[in-house]
């Protein structure tokens, strides 16, 4: 664990922080049809790494390959080298441990059909924790950090699946945090959330950056500009370029397609 000050420095110089996940020559295909080809870059500790691109660019497939969801996805095949803390993930036998260290937030909020409390206590329970007092602490901390505690603290025993969309999305984030993840992956988290909630979640993400690495796929170019330290642009199954977000949005891009996409000329 890095100290708060160290983390802040790491954020300052995200191009020099230690590599959290490295991706080399990754190609993903479904039943022989390629969805993403030859992606290579590093994601560094304590950065928010944005991935932008239009639909069908391979963004979601890429996230699935990072936490080894390929065996749970029909026909999905991943080639190339993906490392988590230097360990090659595609040779891991215990994919469950890897997934526990990577929290995932989906485009559509998924409140599991159980109480709000149970939603957040689920991951600790799956890891064998059963002490009620410890669970209480985790539930309160995770809901607080997902900016949901004040709204639900009086009804922790009502169903999580009946919360509003924006609340469910924060519940999903709280659930992901309860895994104590080292990496948090968000896949277009704001697609079903109102603008106010989106802003609240963005504030949450900025705070979380000091504790974990965040990989954020987004359909909103401005969201990447607001949050991401570095951004990758995916297009049609190809990673067009990776750069420091501020520089990219200031016009320093290598590829004309990136410039066009950022300026909203297509996609």
């Amino acid at each position, binding site marked *: 664990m890095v100290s708060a000050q160290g983390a802040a420095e790491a954020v300052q110089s995200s191009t020099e922080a230690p590599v959290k996940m490295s991706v080399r020559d990754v190609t993903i295909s479904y039943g022989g049809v390629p969805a993403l080809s030859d992606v290579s870059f590093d994601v560094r500790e304590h950065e928010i790494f944005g991935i932008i691109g239009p639909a069908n660019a391979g963004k979601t497939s890429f996230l699935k390959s990072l*936490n080894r*969801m390929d065996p*749970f996805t*029909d026909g999905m095949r991943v080639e190339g080298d993906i490392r988590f803390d230097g360990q090659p993930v595609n040779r891991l036998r215990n994919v*469950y*441990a*890897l*997934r*526990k260290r*990577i*929290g*995932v937030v*989906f485009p*559509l909020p*998924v*409140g*599991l*059909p*159980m109480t709000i409390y149970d939603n957040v206590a*689920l*991951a600790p329970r*799956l890891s064998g924790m059963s002490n009620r007092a410890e669970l209480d602490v985790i539930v309160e901390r995770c809901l607080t950090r997902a900016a949901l505690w004040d709204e639900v603290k009086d009804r922790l025993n009502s*169903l999580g*699946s*009946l919360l509003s969309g924006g609340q469910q999305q924060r519940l*999903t984030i709280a*659930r*992901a945090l309860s*895994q104590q993840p080292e990496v948090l992956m968000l896949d277009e988290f704001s697609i079903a959330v109102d603008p106010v909630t989106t802003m609240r979640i963005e504030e949450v993400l900025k705070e979380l950056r000091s504790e974990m690495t965040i990989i954020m796929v987004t359909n909103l170019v401005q969201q990447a500009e607001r949050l991401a330290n570095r951004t990758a642009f995916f297009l049609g199954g190809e990673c067009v370029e990776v750069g420091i977000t501020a520089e990219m949005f200031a016009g320093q891009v290598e590829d004309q397609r990136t410039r066009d996409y950022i300026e909203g000329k297509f996609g």
Partner: protein
Amino acid sequence: MFEVSALNKSNMRVEKLYRILFAMMVLLLVLPVLIILGTLVAKGGSVISFEFLFSNPTDGMTAGGILPALIGTVWLVTVALLISVPLGVAAAIYLNEYAGDNWFTRIINLAIINLAGVPSIVHALFGVGAFVIFFGFGTSILAASLTLAIMTLPIVIVATRESLAAVPMAFREAMWNMGATRWQTIRRVVLPNAISGILTGVILEVSRTTGETAPIMFTGAAFFLPFLPESVFDQTMAMSLHLFVVSTQVPGVPEALPYGVALVLVAMVLIMNSISIAFRMYLRGKKKW
């Protein structure tokens, strides 16, 4: 603009005709049920009493009650359920949660559908060959219940699969992404939300099992046996076979008796079905997403 043309008129006539035609079909469907129930109550209602339900048949089954048959049917159905429910639910969980969609699972699906289509008399003869003779259970509750279980297995499997498939995929994906195994996902999320559909299937199976005659005739049900069974290796009387016997095989049975037996049998099935429907409505109201 809104005048009625000849074409409109004929369309409206045809519309009315079809509506009446379809309504008639519904009526035709309901009519037999009402006639059967009405006849049974009118002709058999008089013999129904506490005595009738809770005493042994006497005078060569021309008088007395139906207790051994009633208890026998409960035995047969219970043992059949104990066998088919765990087997069927486990098979359905495998097919829906673990197996991918490939030629192997498609063949299994085909086999299940075909199993549901096999006539009950064929199941009966299979039961005789397999359970009574080959496994040496003799004619017994065990052999009869095994036969019934195999016959009704498709009901359990299909009902369970359908209710498992009704649980949204997103719930499973959320669990898997948290590092849960497939079994943890099934136990914590899928089964608790599929249990209502599974139970409904089980109750339907009960009502189907209760009425079956052919599969138990050669495998475990006795013509006349004025004792209650003590273990699964005993023979037993059963409601469905008893009805057949008092209707056709025994001379001198008063006319009301078979109607009374039939009324009790139909009532058992109807009560089971009503419970199933009420249960489904109750759980639908409690839906969690």
